[in-house]
């Protein structure tokens, strides 16, 4: 058993940061804690490390109850968001710190530090101080320092948050490879869904201090368990709709689609979520349930195009790959049709506006 959390709760004053969180991470897994900023994911990580004390609940690391143990005794590795390297020590000294505290023999420390320097590919930078290293190098020193004491569990708080896009991508792949080699049970916190999808074995989606969904990247992306997950992982269009006799009618239009998904749904108000890449644009009506719409703007995005369309005042975003556009099929202000290749509906029990508001607040839709 790797990491087990049982009913963890934590309040800061009146603010509930973590609310009855339970989950398990298998030995050797690399798991992403994913959620918007302020959702409590970092607090959960700090609770596992012992830097915060939960108000209630239990924490088990490698089968042992560590709830009452101080951070010194939990034997975890922790990589801080801004690395928290000791500024007055060289890279080498930083990595050796944990071993020196354990009063290991000088020769053993030296050997271990050299091994780690090789592992994180920092040969030649041993005597550099943190402020003489680049962001990516500091990140790797922090990782080597965390691994020096051979922890059973590795915790990473927004490990790539402070790096620029290119370095981030490389380090992400590198971490993946690295984990394959070491097989150390790891949790990393991120607010970046693409990072979580690329790197992790499993994603735990956190929202307002609770676990929203646990699953592989594919499960979470293709079968989101809630509106929140659907809109947080990847882009999504949110449309108001009404279900009647297994037909879903989009509000504000006369157009209906058949409810062919497995989402069993009683008649009534629903929210229809459709991903931009799951919408097909067609120049003319082919089927009776195709939606007429107007192309408002075409955004160039490098690898693809994003197209903003309007249906009776509703904005819908569509992603088209470059090839289609290259043929100059679409232009702005063109009247076209669209149909949904796949979509999901969720009950609108909270009311459409409130969902919209929440998504806006969190910055997932405009």
């Amino acid at each position, binding site marked *: 058993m790797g990491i087990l959390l049982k009913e963890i709760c934590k309040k800061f004053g009146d603010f509930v940061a973590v609310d009855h969180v339970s989950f398990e991470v298998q030995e050797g897994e690399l798991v992403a804690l994913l959620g918007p900023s302020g959702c409590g994911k970092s607090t959960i990580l700090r609770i596992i490390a012992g830097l915060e004390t939960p108000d209630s609940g239990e924490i088990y690391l490698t089968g042992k109850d560590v709830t009452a143990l101080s*951070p010194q005794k939990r034997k975890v590795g*922790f990589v801080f968001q801004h690395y928290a390297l000791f500024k007055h020590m060289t890279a080498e000294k930083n990595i050796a710190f944990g071993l020196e505290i354990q009063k290991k023999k000088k020769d053993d420390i030296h050997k271990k530090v050299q091994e780690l320097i090789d592992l994180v590919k920092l040969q030649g930078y041993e005597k550099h101080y943190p402020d003489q290293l680049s962001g990516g190098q500091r990140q790797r020193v922090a990782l080597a320092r965390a691994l020096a*004491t051979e922890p059973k569990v590795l915790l990473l708080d927004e490990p790539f948050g402070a790096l620029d896009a290119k370095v981030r991508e490389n380090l992400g792949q590198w971490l993946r490879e690295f984990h394959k080699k070491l097989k150390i049970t790891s949790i990393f916190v991120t607010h970046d869904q693409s990072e979580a999808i690329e790197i992790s074995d499993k994603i735990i989606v956190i929202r307002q201090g609770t676990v929203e969904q646990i699953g592989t990247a594919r499960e979470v992306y293709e079968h989101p368990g809630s509106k929140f997950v659907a809109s947080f992982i990847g882009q999504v269009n949110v449309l108001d709709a009404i279900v009647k006799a297994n037909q879903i009618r989009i509000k504000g239009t006369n157009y209906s689609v058949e409810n062919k998904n497995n989402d069993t749904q009683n008649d009534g108000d629903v929210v229809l979520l459709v991903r931009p890449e799951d919408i097909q644009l067609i120049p003319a009506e082919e089927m009776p349930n195709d939606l007429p719409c107007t192309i408002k703007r075409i955004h160039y995005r490098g690898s693809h195009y994003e197209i903003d369309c309007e249906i009776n005042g509703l904005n819908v975003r569509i992603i088209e790959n470059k090839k289609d556009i290259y043929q100059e099929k679409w232009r702005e202000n063109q009247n076209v049709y669209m149909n949904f290749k796949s979509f999901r509906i969720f009950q609108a029990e909270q009311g459409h506006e409130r969902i919209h508001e929440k998504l806006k607040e969190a910055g997932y839709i405009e």
Partner: protein
Amino acid sequence: MKEQLKQIRIVRKKNYIGRYTLIILVMAWFIILTMLPVYGIIKETFKNGWHIFITSLATPASQHSFLMTLWITVGTIIINTVFGVILAVVLVKQNFRGKLLFEGFVDLPFAVSPVVAGFMFIVLFGPKGWIGNWFETHQLKIVYAFPGMLIATLFVTLPFVAREVIPVLREFGLQQEEAAYILGASKWQTFLKVTLPSIKWGLAYGITLTIARSIGEFGAVLVVSGSIINKTQTATLHIHQEFTDFNYAGAFSAAVVLAVISFLILTTMQHVYKRKRI
């Protein structure tokens, strides 16, 4: 185009004039206020040669006064460094009721005139004061003796270390300490190996200011010590004594020594300050 260039050149010239006028003004002010007096005192001291300088410094009263200053300074450094760091740590890391008010009171010694401070200690620790009375019955003299002078100096130098360490400690934050805890270091180990090395230049600057003030303190010590020759006179009190006794050679000689010490402290301070900013 050409006209435009011309205009730019004229504007620049004007700026140069303004700049040099300012520089000359500042230099003149500085020379009149600091360099001239220093030159005057050195010239006056060595007017009759080295001999008088040496003999006036060799008098028992003079030597005793410098020793007194030395011991007070050493005591102040030790006590106020330890206490100042503890004070800074408490104010930065602990939360308690009335912390803001308390933080304000740390600066009290800056606001209170040293002479007034001296009188406060006389009232408190004097033979008739309510704490001094107790010490008196236990055969311990505080006022008009070394302990009182040390306490007075501690009071006037109290804020220096704390005030310099607090911002450095705030900027240092918590993360490096947390990293050390997770790597197995105890709180004490973390303080010695991580926190202290990180605040050392701020601390050094605070200590330098403390030294400068301890050596130069006059008012508070004058009131508390009673300025007894060969007993409770510090270097500054000795200079004052010599001066009021019309023994200018003695006063100037001691003053030159203090000026040289101040100069050394100033240089160290500059050095430390540069390091602190890095």
